[in-house]
């Protein structure tokens, strides 16, 4: 088993709250190392209180164990702090298809959350005629929006930088 193979296995570990995204798409995995027969995987939380972190750690250990890698250590680091910049383009695409608007660039995000500019795309009908309902949503990483054309409410994944 080499590092590339470990990464392949990690690609099948998903975020329990957004099951279409793998932890690699999320940018939560910060490193994979081999030392003295142990695979050391470093992860970082999206938000301090993210309740998915314990679950992610368990799933990593379980996935690798099923592939025959039994000596695994998962290490959580806080710095550098996670940013939505680490989310892959593929991940953003998957989010959109799943019905969650992906994070915009920081300046566009600020304008969108302040209600200045309408540029968050509705994942349902792709209209940009959308409006923020509230800064907070179903999980720490999302805000709630509404499409003014198809009238569907939807989650927007907030930019964190």
């Amino acid at each position, binding site marked *: 088993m080499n590092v590339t193979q470990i990464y392949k296995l990690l690609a099948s570990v998903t975020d329990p709250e957004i099951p279409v995204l793998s932890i690699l798409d999320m940018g939560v995995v910060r490193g994979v190392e081999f030392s003295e027969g142990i695979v050391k995987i470093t992860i970082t*939380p999206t*938000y*301090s*209180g*993210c*309740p998915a972190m314990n679950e992610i750690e368990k799933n990593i250990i379980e996935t690798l164990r099923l592939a025959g890698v039994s000596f695994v250590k998962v290490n959580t*680091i*806080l*710095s*550098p*702090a996670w940013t939505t910049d680490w989310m892959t383009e593929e991940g953003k695409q998957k989010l959109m298809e799943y019905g969650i608007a992906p994070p915009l660039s920081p300046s566009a995000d600020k304008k969108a*959350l302040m209600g200045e500019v309408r540029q968050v795309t509705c994942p349902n009908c792709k209209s940009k005629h959308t409006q923020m*309902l*509230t*800064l*907070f*949503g*179903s999980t*720490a990483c999302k805000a*709630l929006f509404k499409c003014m054309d198809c009238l569907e409410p939807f989650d927007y994944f*907030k930019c*964190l*930088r």
Partner: protein
Amino acid sequence: MNHQHLFEYVLQLADNANVLSHRLGQWCGHGPVIEQDIAMTNLALDLIGQARNLYQYAATIEGKGRTEDDMAYLRDGWDFYNLLLTELPNGDFGKTVARQFLYDTYALLFYSELKNSPNEMLAAIAEKSLKETAYHYRWSSEWVIRLGDGTEESHRKMQEGLNEVWRYTDEIFQPVEREKILIAAGVLPDLAALKPQWEEKVRAVIEEATLSLPEAAGMQYGGKTGRHTEALGYILAEMQYMQRAYPGLEW
């Protein structure tokens, strides 16, 4: 500086986050509208995460095998070092917003400085918490403005909220012994230097909200050294009941 000072100081920061989180959590199911109910529990969740990071670090410093749970659930009130501000009862939505706004403004300035601390663990926790706090500040400062510059009734309630909690704000900036030692050692930013910045930021929002700055009279101190208002005991009774009644209980 010794381990005891750092240990107690990390607990102090953890207790702030934990106790304030508990207060916000009490709004769950009682918010004025569902969006704000969700907002306050989101803030509470971030704060719980920050408290966990800090309690885990405190447990490591102490090195006696205690865990983050022992720190939160098995210490008595006189061993809690949180600011009196964080334990104040929720009151109405105006008072909760006032308490949150004054705390967030301080936390924003404080974590911006603490992230440069030579203590790597404190710096990392500050860097992480800062991003969340910036979002909290956006929420609480917007509500001060919306309520203050709203109807006659919302203006009155927002002003009353500010007046009620104001006397608990000076404690933030008056260093106790362990803080003086850590400031002198360069681990912590100088609290006295943060005060004018805090006042300026608070004043700007209060003015925009057409509210007035409360009078600085009868300032209260004691939380950082374990002398609390009667409110903390009730919080701990609720928070710690299960672990006290059924030691070692797990979900």
